[in-house]
């Protein structure tokens, strides 16, 4: 054993030596699993209340927009009733809103390949601020001073269809539509702890049981309807004050 005989004898003291020389900037872990009972990193529940990012007129517009994307209809509540506006607001106020985890160093060339994905310096917070302002401007000039929330549902759908097809010409209109649609679906189908999917209405729509975590009974009896109601990280309304 050429490498280690010398230091093996000193292993214990060498460990302490390193630990002493090593500041607390990073973590040194040795000797045992560094685990403490009941230590976990849960998400912080979103509490309803005033908006953290949206201005009142922006929140009214988002309410109206998401209400058309996922309407309240005979199949159940829509995105507005599910709290999606609050969900988006809280997401924008957090690290997602600034693309804090993404690579955002330039340069940002003007004509990236479609296969190269996200190449815009506009972060979601700016996407909403600019997109909602441009939409309000478009509606005012097209519908004699009215904003999106003032329009009848059929006209609202026309505007949304135009945004999706790129026929409503506002700056970065298609990107704004894609962002809004993606966030709406996230809010409608994510765990209610993030402020949307209130009463698990999104999960009930499709029949997703949420966080039940044990489906061995389903595997044992294939091709049967699943009848238990969904459960979320915060539990279930019937279980208490949620």
């Amino acid at each position, binding site marked *: 054993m*050429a490498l280690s005989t010398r230091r093996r004898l000193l*292993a214990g003291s060498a460990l302490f030596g390193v630990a002493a020389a090593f500041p607390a900037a990073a973590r*040194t872990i*040795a000797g045992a699993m560094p685990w403490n009972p009941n230590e976990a990193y849960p998400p912080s529940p979103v509490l309803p209340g005033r908006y953290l990012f949206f201005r009142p007129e922006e929140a009214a517009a988002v309410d109206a927009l998401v209400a058309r994307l*996922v309407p309240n209809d005979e199949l159940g509540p829509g995105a507005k009733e599910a709290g999606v506006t609050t969900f988006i607001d809280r997401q924008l106020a957090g690290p997602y809103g600034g693309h804090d985890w993404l690579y955002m160093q330039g340069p940002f060339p003007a004509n990236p390949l479609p296969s190269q994905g996200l190449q815009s310096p506009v972060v979601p917070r700016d996407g909403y601020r600019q997109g909602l302002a441009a939409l309000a401007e478009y509606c005012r000039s097209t519908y004699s001073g009215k904003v999106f929330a003032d329009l009848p549902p059929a006209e609202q759908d026309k505007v949304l269809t135009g945004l999706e097809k790129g026929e409503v010409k506002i700056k970065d209109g298609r990107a704004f539509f894609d962002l809004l649609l993606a966030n709406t679906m996230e809010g409608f189908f994510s765990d209610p702890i993030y402020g949307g999917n209130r009463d698990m209405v999104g999960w009930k729509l499709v029949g997703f049981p949420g966080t039940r*975590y044990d489906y061995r009974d*389903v595997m044992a009896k*294939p091709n049967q309807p699943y009848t238990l109601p969904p459960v979320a*990280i915060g539990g279930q309304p019937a279980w208490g004050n949620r």
Partner: protein
Amino acid sequence: MVRRLPPKDVVIVGLGWTGSILALELARAGLEVVALERGPWRDTATDFNIGTTPDELRYSIRHELFLRPRQETVTMRNTPDQLALPIRRWGSFLPGNGVGGAGVHWNGQTWRFLPNDFKIRSNTIARYGDKALPDGNHIQDWPVTYEELEPYYDRFEYVAGISGKAGNLKGATQPGGNPFEGARAREYPTKPLTQGYAQDLFTKAATERGLHPFPRPSANISEPYTNPYGCRMAPCTFCGFCERFGCANYSKSSPQTCVLPALMREPLFEARTECEVTKVNLSGDGKHATGVTYVDSQGQEWEQPGELVILCAFSFFNVRLMLLSGIGQPYDRDRDEGVVGRNYAYQSAGGSTAFFENVNFNPFAAAGSLGAAVDDYNSDNFDHTNLGFVGGASITCAYTNGRPILYRPVPPGTPTWGSAWKRAVKDNYQKVTSVGAQGSVMSYRDCFLDLDPTYKDPLGRPLLRMTFDYKNNERKLSDWMSDRCDEIIRAMGAKTTQKTPIRGPWSVIPYQTTHNTGGAIMGDDPKTSALNRYLQSWDVPNVFVMGASAFPQNAGYNPTGTVGALTYWALDAIRDRYLKSPGPLVQA
């Protein structure tokens, strides 16, 4: 100012599957081992609590467990004449970060490559002639055979507790298993997972078509198990939160579940997290590594001397560290010379999706490796004459999850929003299944990794640049496999199906697979490989490089089983031969 630390015998860069296995085994062999991990510490009890793990937004959509592109990403272009741009948000693949690496959030499909995969160049030429090889290819035989790796596949499978059914025990075909697999010495350590309704339909239809279905080998395990390190696992409950998530149930094999509980008790081992290795330091002549330099989370630079340096990062980052450190000659595509960055490959895909009536597939009752598969169209298990491609695919009917932010199948032509969309989402959630092909990708002169000339990481070091697209060989394979998948799913009773072959250039946007291979490949010739057959650098013999970066090209399977086998193969070479006489294990 760089501060110098006391030396260690072994410095391991990256504490995922390969790093934790080597750390445990080398510490037990009496060596002082330090593992440097740039991400955070993670353990099951703390980080993957059962009350908070099933959270699609946090883990799957916002990517909490993955490497943050802000810290490091790769730049990408499809062809060498294009301008590469950074992947700003992960999509097509999801590199891991932190202790456990991608072994935390994988699905757990744990295959052995077929004997032919290791000899694909010479076998293809022998059977079909050398004109059968695609234009511009760099296909190479592996420097190891299946038979040599078999005991090491076995070791990894028993550490990971893999659930499956043998199809070939010592040459004797076993009913219910994969008859095409290479001979294995013994059964899987745990019985196969229970399969669901869609898999039952698939198995019946495939059998009727003369194919040979079997349950896919799974690291989501079927029954209680204690592995050779004394780590205990519990049966999978089909929660449907595997890929992109840590397992709270000790049911999915991972470094956390299978290795770390034993490793952390080794007195000669120490892990340092949030420490990013920036460089392997070399002696003046460049032929010997003296240790590594790393930066901790407060920006302090440290030098960690060591006598043996083992790169155990994700494939891209092994390659990048070699390029940044000057280990091996960088690959130059124009001159077709050099080795580091050569033979980047990926995974091809195809399949067919079908909408059924009056069924309850219950897609949420799932596991990352739940699935029934056939291997009749993989590797060279079928006649390629006049097909126009080499390679093959494993074909599977599977559910990994039914998580509704991403899993909301609707028929083609459905609006993306509004009441009609809502109706379609509700009506189809239970009714859709698919048969998918996971295909090989060959290696080519034009598919490679090098350093980007423009984009840098926060420490000012060049990002890795990827040049990759699917070639005609892989596109033909995908078309052909999609037809086979469609035949099977129609035999399952589907009336309307939609084939999903590769179309258009490879894109970073939709998730495809995190099976990024090559760039620091193993081989018999130092002119065409960065590593010898023991994963040892030809140029700097006290540097070993683990992981899928060593694959000469990729097979029609998930890579982790082979990565695990190569790790134990290299371990034996290091422990039994290298330590007794440090130096090159193969003479160039």
